[in-house]
């Protein structure tokens, strides 16, 4: 009997069911708050033709960037990409497709996907290439464009701590896109730094309630820093 115990012990179990051509929603901003071990597992599995909604695509050799090496990604839905040479090369050669999406619109599209809202209006992108081909509508004298929601076959999330029921909390700005991603996967997998027992996390301060989470795995993280900046 499983009950609500979402903990899996291997990365194979964590991503069981992920197959070629699927859509993945991944949390993280830059290299901060990314599910490192789950990404490594996708590389190991060799799954191809993936569509990945994630704000960025890592760097050469780290984060989602490693999935470019074996051409596992067909399409990125992101607000900012190309921090890596390999990305640029595959984009220019047409091997890789990018749907550039404003950061706030991307966050809201994922939230809407998880919340059963198929589409919403936003002023962001009106009058720009992002708005081209999208319905425009005026509310209170201002023009807005219609944006549709995103859901994924899998959502890959990086949490700080989770209890065995899948309740998750995030740490500092490693939160970023993770809470929305967690709501929008048919299967949501959360990789965390620590697994605790139900009741150990304050119920008033759970960031992602366990109802959204299917699998929890204890990971280990390098937490590479993209722009180390110090004051004297």
């Amino acid at each position, binding site marked *: 009997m499983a009950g609500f115990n979402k903990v899996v012990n291997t990365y194979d179990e964590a991503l069981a069911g992920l197959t070629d051509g699927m859509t993945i929603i991944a949390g993280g901003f830059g290299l901060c708050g990314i599910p490192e071990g789950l990404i490594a597992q996708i590389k190991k599995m060799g799954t191809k033709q993936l569509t990945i909604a994630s704000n960025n695509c890592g760097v050469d050799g780290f984060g989602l960037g490693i999935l470019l090496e074996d051409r596992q990604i067909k399409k990125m839905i992101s607000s900012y990409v190309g921090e890596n040479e390999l990305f640029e090369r595959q984009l220019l050669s047409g091997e890789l497709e990018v749907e*550039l999406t404003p950061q706030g619109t991307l966050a809201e599209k994922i939230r809407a996907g998880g919340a059963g809202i198929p589409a919403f209006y936003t002023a*962001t992108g009106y009058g720009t290439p992002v708005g081209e081909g999208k319905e425009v509508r005026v509310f209170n004298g201002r023009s807005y464009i219609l944006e549709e929601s995103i859901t994924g076959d899998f959502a890959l999330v990086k949490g700080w701590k989770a209890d065995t029921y899948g309740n998750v909390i995030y740490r500092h700005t490693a939160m970023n896109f993770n809470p929305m991603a967690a709501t929008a996967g048919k299967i949501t997998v959360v990789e965390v730094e620590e697994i605790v027992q139900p009741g150990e996390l304050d119920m008033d301060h759970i960031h992602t309630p366990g109802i959204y989470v299917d699998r929890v795995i204890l990971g280990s993280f390098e937490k590479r820093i993209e722009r180390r900046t110090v004051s004297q």
Partner: protein
Amino acid sequence: MSLSREQIAQRVARELKDGYYVNLGIGIPTLVANYIPPGIEVMLQSENGLLGMGPFPTADKIDADMINAGKQTVTAIKGASIFSSAESFAMIRGGHVHFTVLGAFEVDVEGNIASWMIPGKLVKGMGGAMDLVAGAHNIIVTMTHASKDGESKLLTRCSLPLTGAGCIKKVVTDLAYVEIREGKFWLLERAPGVSVDTIVKLTAGPIVVPEVVPEMCF
């Protein structure tokens, strides 16, 4: 003398008011934080999910889980709050941020801004810029007045793909402080030692020059 990057930031900083929540873009806008006028408090919002951004950490306090929208390691002030990207852009899109400073390639007299895409060059993305220009009531654009070849960036109509339509009202360049009103640029201030003629010559869009155009002081 045209303004230095630091002086542009300094001039922008004078527009800050006590109690403002502020979002500063990458580049010159980031420098604005160094020139907050004495006697006022502002709080910095970083769109990756931090309200109350502090200075860069000392080397021993670096934390990979604590970065800003430019992906730099940062600290948080006392009274800061952390939230998701959806919540962060709810703040931005909902008009709760009082003051936004952004760089640009071009602006025009309709208040359009182009800042993210140069056709033919690799496009890295708009990040949060489209949300910021669409959501903020009070935006200042910082940029050089003209390219190195002397081509104006203050146009009748932006030539590059837009970041936002009809949302810019104020521009601080290395030469001038300009407001956009009624389909024209209005020259409010000029950089020390820069003549009105120079500015007019380097402004491609229609520009209104009042009788007196004060020189900025630093």
